[in-house]
């Protein structure tokens, strides 16, 4: 939309609505703004759907709890398209404006909403309709275990973080008192008391806040792997045990302050990295947001709106013009041809025509007239569900991303352990047993790998914070590291490199025709059509009234304008209606819409699925960096060949099924590391398999849920921003690792020489961690 005369892009409807709201200084209501600027045409269709099924008790029982005493019902919904706080605010605000709605909660991280309403005053269908009209896709909440598990985990880690934070504040104050005492003198009892209190406060931090580190370290050891958690857990445990022993023996040093600070900083960094956005990681939602949750069933001469879950095989359903097909089925006998768009399912950009008794897949969009379908498969039997299981299998088989820091850690731990033991033994021989233990502990503590283990997560947290402000969602932080090792980039075509919708390429007018009038005729005829071509042509000119409008599915349209009949559609269709004329001015090829009247052909309009802005630039950039570029498309050969030529991609494959894509990716993975950029359901399995995957924001929920990175802004050239940010983040991680490594390189020999008292070691450890965290904050700048 336009703000202050400048074209702006938004990650979601919510952001755009908020921006429009601010722009209009609250002078206009939202709904006016919304209807003025529909964002994504596809979603608006939901508003046209008959939502009365939401009022059926048999459908409601799954997700609505009615309290008969207070008369308040609570509905749990899943809302697709909610990306950020702005979305949830918009929904809340507009629902609360409905009388009878008591309370609304929308969680932007999970997409879950609960609506409390008085069922005597307002119908649920009305509420759902309002959400749909805002441009979101509401559906009954499904018990998505992964999301609820994530929510629980998030709450737990927040509680752990709080304990560590409060603990840190307390212990630090005691520590300051003790450090001051070390210099100015402190009486033994006071020191003992301070240590006891520190121990009291540190204990829950170690056993509660740091519990995940211990759990992950043991699980890593059980799998005979060396992760960063091993030295972390070891350091915490050793420092804690030593401190406890020293507290009660009233000798030596205590390290409670280092422990709590370390646990707090590390938990904080991990919380920030892990808690960004769960939406991109759920896969339970995907199918349901791809296919509608409602259907219309033929029941003894009437059509009833029902929930999709209520449908059974052999039911007959009506799929309206422009709607998504909810179930797999076959076109009923005796009905006309159907026109379907299946770009998300197959990658085929053209509209497919299906005849009676031929199969229609769930998730296709009906772009022709209303359809009469006989249901052949529901629920998990649907072919779209089968793509999902393919996708889930691929997710499971994905090669593990090797974390550089973890590999470093295993070496580091081994060396430190050897040094500590060797140093301890040497001092035992040279001095006494007591001194040996003290040196060994000092080495372990001074080298405590806080700085090393913070190096990566702190940068990733900062980088993902910076990226999200650019509309780039980093779902898996490791993707930043893996991006570097990518040597082949695989693009999907329809919807990824292209917009996935037809747009105008050229208008050819017959030599004696008037191009202005031609545009008016085309725009007027297309007003009532749901065909994707119509979307591209509707805005050509100001429409005028059309009489006797008629749709010929698979062929074209006709209508009477100003008393004159016009035909519009395929060349074959128009040329049979209009008399033969000389067509030497017209282009060759099939991808054109022809217009004719009783005098002959008036003109033709060439359409193309135009490449996204910056498409060429992105391909050239990665090619110049030495990556192989490849195009895997479900579209037909001719279209893919032309497109690959246009963009300059040599290696391209057409007519790839989801299975084909997945197989190609896994066979290439034997020798190469792959980045997959896609958007459709048909790409999802391949994306799950690829080493790094990027999904476009306008893509299907399933593709986004499996992707490591989602370009919420829906701009392909954000790949360049992403690559720059990734480079920067990697440089920062390297710097941090050098820094931490250098610190250890200096401090360990000094400690081994017995020159660092353990309290100084603890201070050094805390300062080095802080330095790493502060330096990582630079990753926010992009």
């Amino acid at each position, binding site marked *: 939309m336009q703000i202050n005369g400048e074209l702006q892009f938004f990650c979601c409807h919510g952001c755009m609505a908020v921006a429009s709201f601010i722009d209009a200084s609250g002078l206009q209501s939202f709904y006016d703004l919304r209807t003025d600027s529909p964002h994504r045409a596809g979603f608006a269709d939901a508003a046209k759907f008959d939502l009365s099924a939401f009022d059926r008790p048999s459908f409601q029982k799954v997700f609505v709890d009615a309290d008969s005493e207070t008369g308040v019902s609570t509905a749990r919904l899943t809302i697709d398209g909610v990306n950020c706080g702005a979305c949830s605010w918009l929904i809340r605000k507009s629902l609360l404006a409905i009388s009878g709605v008591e309370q609304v909660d929308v*969680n932007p991280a999970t997409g879950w909403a609960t609506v409390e309403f008085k069922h005597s005053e307002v119908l649920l269908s009305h509420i759902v309709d309002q959400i749909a009209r805002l441009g979101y896709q509401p559906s009954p909440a499904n018990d998505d275990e992964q999301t609820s598990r994530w929510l629980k985990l998030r709450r737990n880690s927040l509680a752990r973080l*709080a304990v560590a934070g409060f603990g840190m504040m*307390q212990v630090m104050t005691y520590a300051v008192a003790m450090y001051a005492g070390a210099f100015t003198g402190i009486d033994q009892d006071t020191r003992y008391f301070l240590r006891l209190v520190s121990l009291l406060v540190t204990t829950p931090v170690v056993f509660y806040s740091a519990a995940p580190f211990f759990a992950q370290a043991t699980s890593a050891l059980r799998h005979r792997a060396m992760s960063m958690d091993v030295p972390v857990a070891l350091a915490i445990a050793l420092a804690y045990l030593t401190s406890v022993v020293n507290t009660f023996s009233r000798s030596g040093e205590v390290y409670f302050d280092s422990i709590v600070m370390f646990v707090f900083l590390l938990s904080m960094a991990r919380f920030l990295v892990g808690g960004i956005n769960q939406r991109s990681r759920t896969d339970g939602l995907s199918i349901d947001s791809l296919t509608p949750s409602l259907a219309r069933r033929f029941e003894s001469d009437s059509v009833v709106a029902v929930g999709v879950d209520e449908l059974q095989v052999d039911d007959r359903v009506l799929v309206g013009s422009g709607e998504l097909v909810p179930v797999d089925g076959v076109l009923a006998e005796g009905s006309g041809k159907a026109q379907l768009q299946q770009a998300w399912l197959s990658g085929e950009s053209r509209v497919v025509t299906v005849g009676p008794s031929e199969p229609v897949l769930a998730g296709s969009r009906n772009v022709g007239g209303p359809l009469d379908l006989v249901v052949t498969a529901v629920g998990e039997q649907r072919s779209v569900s089968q793509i999902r299981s393919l996708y889930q299998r691929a997710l499971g088989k994905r090669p593990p991303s090797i974390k550089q820091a973890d590999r470093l850690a295993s070496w580091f731990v081994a060396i430190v352990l050897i040094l500590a033991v060797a140093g301890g033994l040497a001092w035992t021989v040279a001095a006494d047993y007591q001194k040996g233990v003290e040196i060994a502990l000092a080495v372990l503590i001074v080298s405590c790998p806080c700085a090393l283990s913070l190096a990566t997560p702190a940068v990733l947290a900062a980088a993902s914070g910076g990226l999200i402000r650019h509309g780039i969602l980093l779902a898996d932080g490791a993707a930043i590291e893996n991006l570097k090792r990518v040597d082949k980039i695989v693009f999907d075509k329809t919807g990824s490199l292209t917009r996935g919708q037809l747009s105008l390429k050229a208008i050819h007018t017959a030599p004696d025709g008037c191009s202005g009038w031609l545009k008016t005729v085309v725009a007027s005829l297309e007003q009532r059509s749901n065909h994707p071509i119509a979307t591209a042509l509707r805005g050509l000119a100001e429409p005028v009234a059309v009489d006797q409008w008629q749709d010929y599915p698979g062929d074209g349209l006709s209508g009477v304008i100003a008393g004159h009949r016009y035909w519009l559609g395929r060349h074959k269709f128009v040329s049979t209606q209009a008399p033969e004329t000389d067509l030497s001015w017209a282009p060759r090829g099939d991808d054109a819409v022809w217009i004719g009247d009783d005098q002959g052909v008036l003109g033709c309009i060439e359409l193309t699925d135009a490449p996204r802005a910056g498409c060429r630039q992105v391909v050239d950039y990665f090619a110049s960096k030495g990556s192989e570029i490849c195009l895997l498309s479900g579209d037909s050969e001719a279209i893919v060949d032309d497109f690959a030529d246009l963009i300059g991609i040599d290696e391209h494959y057409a007519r790839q099924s989801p299975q084909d894509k997945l197989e190609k990716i896994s066979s290439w993975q034997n020798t190469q590391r792959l980045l997959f950029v896609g958007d459709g359901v048909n790409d999802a399995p391949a994306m799950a398999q690829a080493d790094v995957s990027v999904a476009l924001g306008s893509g299907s929920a399933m593709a986004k849920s499996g992707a490591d990175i989602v370009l919420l802004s829906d701009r392909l050239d954000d790949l360049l921003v992403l690559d720059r940010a990734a480079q920067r983040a990697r440089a920062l991680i390297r710097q941090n690792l050098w820094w931490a490594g250098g610190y250890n390189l200096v401090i360990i020999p000094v400690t081994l020489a017995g020159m660092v008292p353990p309290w100084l070691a603890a201070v050094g450890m805390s300062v080095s961690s802080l330095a790493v965290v502060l330096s990582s904050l630079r990753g926010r700048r992009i």
Partner: protein
Amino acid sequence: MQSIYLLIPLSVILVVVAVAAFFWAVRSGQFDDLDSPALDILDKDDDD
């Protein structure tokens, strides 16, 4: 100096209370959504 034997345990009790309050807030879902409340100030009418 004797005062610390009273004040420090007192501060520990206060911390326990603070942590308990925070736990309650987390459990009741107050921290599940940290983004949208920031936008509530955009509502000019405060009747909801």
